[in-house]
């Protein structure tokens, strides 16, 4: 799944260990590393956050702009997620035009947030058909030690919760130096998270290190949230050449709600 390979020996060792439920760092197969969230990466951003999962670190910023609405959503604000895999963050990242991973990461973050209706986009309409807010989320890995997608999703929701609206005048011009006390219109209940399951042999693991991630053959990522009191899947994408069986998908469906509960609870301390 990566162009740079882990050695066959490492891969074989990991496969064996996973089948016995063990990992190099002593975690269980679906245990996460320690998660921490900090705010205030940039005071020029409307909101920002830094997330660490083990040695993986990602910074996420939110910028707000005003502009015309899209033709098919005249009464709604816009959401845009972009990002870049900076060569700073990993020997695996290269400069030049974005590769598949660089295109996929912001798209997955976008889909998990959009599908959950966490942001009430209708409340970001300033004047119907003319002027709306655009929320731009930018994701930059600082150190990639695996599980970048799940980390980026956490970073995005943290940065959104951290965001304060800037002042605008009657013409819709923004004064970025004057922040109001108004937060973004976010659903209180909804906390969209991503969970990426990685498969090696017959084992499924969560939150891989970079080494584990590169040894695995297949990944499937789910965006999940709570909506009107129910747990909902909001997005899904399988990556990699090897298939999943029906039983594996059903097993993931059993793990997901439980894991969602556990990580949401942890994150509520930070939000």
């Amino acid at each position, binding site marked *: 799944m990566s162009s740079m390979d882990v050695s066959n020996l490492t891969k074989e060792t990991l496969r064996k260990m996973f089948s016995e439920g063990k990992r190099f760092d002593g975690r269980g197969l679906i245990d996460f590393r320690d998660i921490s969230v900090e705010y205030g990466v940039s005071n020029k951003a409307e909101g920002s956050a830094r997330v660490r999962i083990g040695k993986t670190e990602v910074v996420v910023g939110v910028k707000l702009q005003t502009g015309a609405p899209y*033709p098919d959503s005249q009464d709604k604000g816009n959401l845009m997620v972009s990002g870049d895999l900076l060569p700073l963050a990993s020997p695996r990242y290269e400069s030049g035009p974005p590769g*598949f991973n660089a295109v996929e990461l912001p798209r997955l973050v976008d889909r998990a947030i959009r599908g959950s209706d966490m942001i009430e986009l209708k409340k970001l309409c300033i004047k119907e058909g003319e002027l709306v807010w655009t929320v731009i989320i930018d994701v930059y890995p600082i150190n990639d030690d695996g599980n970048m997608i799940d980390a980026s999703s956490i970073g995005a929701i943290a940065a959104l919760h951290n965001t304060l609206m800037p002042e605008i005048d009657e013409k819709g011009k923004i004064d970025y130096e004057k922040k109001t006390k108004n937060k973004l219109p976010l659903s209180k209940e909804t906390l969209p998270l991503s969970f990426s399951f990685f498969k090696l042999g017959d084992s499924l693991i969560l939150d891989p290190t970079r080494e584990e991630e590169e040894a695995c053959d297949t990944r499937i990522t789910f965006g999940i949230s709570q909506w009107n009191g129910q747990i909902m899947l909001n997005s899904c994408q399988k990556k990699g050449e090897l298939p999943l069986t029906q039983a594996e998908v*059903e097993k993931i469906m059993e793990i*997901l709600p439980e894991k969602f509960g556990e990580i949401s609870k942890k994150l509520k301390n930070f939000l």
Partner: protein
Amino acid sequence: MAIMTSKKSDFKRPDGRRVDELRKIVAKVGVIPNADGSAMFSFGDTVAIAAVYGPRQLHPQHMQDPSTGILRCNYDLLSFSVYDRKKPGPSRRSQEISKVTEWALLPAIDLSAFPNTVVDVQIYILQADAGTRTAGINAASMALAHAGIPMKDLICSVALGKTDQTLIVDLTKEEEDYHEGEGATDFAIAKLANHDEFTLMQMDGKIQPEKVKELLEMANKACSEICEIQTKALKAVVENSSGSLEENQNE
């Protein structure tokens, strides 16, 4: 197998289909004479064509793999296949779909007999009414078989979904845009026709995890219907050595 929706809701399909009923399928093999293999596949108003070229010499040379041939897929919409003209050229969306299509097809084929080569699969959508990637994968699977690429099975693909609380198969654009209640969920799946191997899973929307099992059962049923039509179209082109394009429909 009887399909039961877990909870009845008021949703009626705009075109009057049953929840587990596919749109009219048309499948043709051999639609592009220049290609080594080609096919057209349509779900209702969604029309996809696919051409396979290869195995052939791979350029650039540094991408060659001396242990096997490689598969390279390209998916895109024609600019006039949608109401708002699509700017020609690859987009982020089409790049992503090209890649997941490659992964969806790979488990079925074996290119180890063709080292250093590439098999190029070109998929274009002529007319779009939702389910374009699944129609494209179905067309590509037939085109690969038509080109004589070693395959252990056909790949079948279909979009499942949910409108409010009703699980449905093969959504139209109108159904994808459903906003009432729990809204619309779109769950694209591909699998090997006769194996328990899911090779594409992509989803957007809102769906309870416990409903996924039922959805997969619906996928199994829909895929066996699709496989039958694909097989019939492939047989037709073999039996008809003149290569005339016989239509195969599910109704």
